């Protein structure tokens, strides 16, 4: 059963990599980059949803990754790989602290702090002049000799981390995450520290989110505080709702379809938000398992393998 989807995935990935290398126009190249980054952001958002938390702080961690990556490149002229890694590490480490403080209590605590966290970060970016203050940071380019390959690099990095997240979800660690969402008290009674596990989950997701931010910074070349409002998380939630939460491929599908559709929505100008709002509503009302669930049902009514142990 697993064979067909796997073959499909490999084929699609190859197409994406090759396509992104040969994509002629700048527009096509940028579109591929945006789609790829949105895919990974959605997968990372979903990873935290495995423990049942809506990670609206994600927007903040994208920003941290973007600024850290941007600083590494523009101020310290570090190699691209190192800039990406620094973006990821900065977001990951800060998220460990945020998670440690906010994920202890049950309830909407984390969600509420997430909003505040995101807005405070934006305030900080706008007040610090070395990183451009309100007008933002400019000149974040990948090195010239890599510019041509940048779309392919982004796609490869995204595919790699998608695979990592997928493997983690299927590992015993991933089962603990889902178990926490199901019944965190029970998880404690079998000797697992729920609080620390949640913190690690957020840390891993935010590391990946940080990569997304750094990739985005080097794709857009310019970043400003306004890019990292909590709307980023709202859009991501829309991708996930439309794509389907039950499988990581739902995150992939939703991000691809909505990002491409949103290109048309740009024509709506100020009504872009309505487009996303409508997408969430339609996703929730008409597609209980999202596009992935729909595809699943059309492809035979059988579920794709989920947990292992078989």
């Amino acid at each position, binding site marked *: 059963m697993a064979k067909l989807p796997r073959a499909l995935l490999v084929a699609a990935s190859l197409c994406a990599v090759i396509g992104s290398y040969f994509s002629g126009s700048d527009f096509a190249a940028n579109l591929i980059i945006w789609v790829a980054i949105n895919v990974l952001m959605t997968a990372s958002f979903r990873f935290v949803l495995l423990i049942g938390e809506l990670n609206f702080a994600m927007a903040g961690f994208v920003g941290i990754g973007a600024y850290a990556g941007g600083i590494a490149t523009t101020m310290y002229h570090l190699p691209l790989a190192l800039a990406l890694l620094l973006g990821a590490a900065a977001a990951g480490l800060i998220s460990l602290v945020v998670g440690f403080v906010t994920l202890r209590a049950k309830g909407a605590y984390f969600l509420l702090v997430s909003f505040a966290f995101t807005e405070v970060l934006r305030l900080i970016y706008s007040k610090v002049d070395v990183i451009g203050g309100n007008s933002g940071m400019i000149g974040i380019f990948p090195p010239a000799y890599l510019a041509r390959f940048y779309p392919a690099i982004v796609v490869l990095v995204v595919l790699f981390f998608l695979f990592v997240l997928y493997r983690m979800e299927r590992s*015993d660690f991933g089962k603990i995450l889902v178990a926490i969402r*199901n*019944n965190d008290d*029970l998880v*404690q*009674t*079998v*000797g*697992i520290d729920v609080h620390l596990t949640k913190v690690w989950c957020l840390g891993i997701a935010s590391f990946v989110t940080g990569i997304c931010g750094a990739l985005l910074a080097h794709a857009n070349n310019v970043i400003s505080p306004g890019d990292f409002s909590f709307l980023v998380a709202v859009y991501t939630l829309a991708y996930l709702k439309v794509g389907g939460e039950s499988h990581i491929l739902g995150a992939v599908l939703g991000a691809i379809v909505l990002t491409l559709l949103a290109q048309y929505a740009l024509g709506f100008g100020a009504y872009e938000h309505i487009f996303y709002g409508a997408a969430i509503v339609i996703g929730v009302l008409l597609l209980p398992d999202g596009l992935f669930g729909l595809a699943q049902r059309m492809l035979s009514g059988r579920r794709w393998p989920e947990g292992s142990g*078989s």
Partner: protein
Amino acid sequence: MEPEILLKVEGLTRHFGGLAAVSDLNFEVRRGEILGLIGPNGAGKSTTFNVISGFHKPTAGKVYFVGEDITGRNPARISRKGLVRTFQHGSLLREMTVYDNMLVATISLMRTRPERDRRVRETAEMLHLSDQLHELVGNLPHGLQRMVSIAIAFSRRSRLLCLDEPLTGLNQIEVASALAIFRRIRDEFGSTILLVEHNMKAVMEICDRIVVLDHGVFLAQGRPIEISQNEAVISAYLGKRK
């Protein structure tokens, strides 16, 4: 060598606002016994479990497990020391398979997947769950769900199992089968069981000793035959029930 007294509860008190859910409770659980903890609804049995297993801090008093003071430790640490408890209202991971429910229970105990896998399969075999391993727990009938709760706890092979009303809603055949399993857990694996249960017939049948609570206060303890003839228990507890 394990001490004879596995769990010792000393002066245990737990208040909720003005309500004394448990007051100055003293009792001990001896290694290898099945000890019943009974009392009318609201007597404080579940609260006692919550304090013993670290989910609630006691207002006063101490809990000793294998000779060590575990008062106020977090539930995960207490569990790793060998005390596992179930919850009255469902100890299940409903969206996960029976297999994964038990697997999660073995993770903090064993390092490798093959070890965990073997433990899960052995446990399923013993609790007659081998045919349901890949079903989602939420889809199982009530009786099997209760068995899965016990299976989760038992797959840890803990020294002490604290079961909170594990027989609720089971039919006679299921109760008999559950009791047989409790005995095997004790006899073959040397586990000790602290059992909160409303099914008096089952309690009288399986327990070596019984502790009775009423309104958070210790009322009596003794062998089942003594408890069933105890005047205070009959008037305070059995008398109130139909």
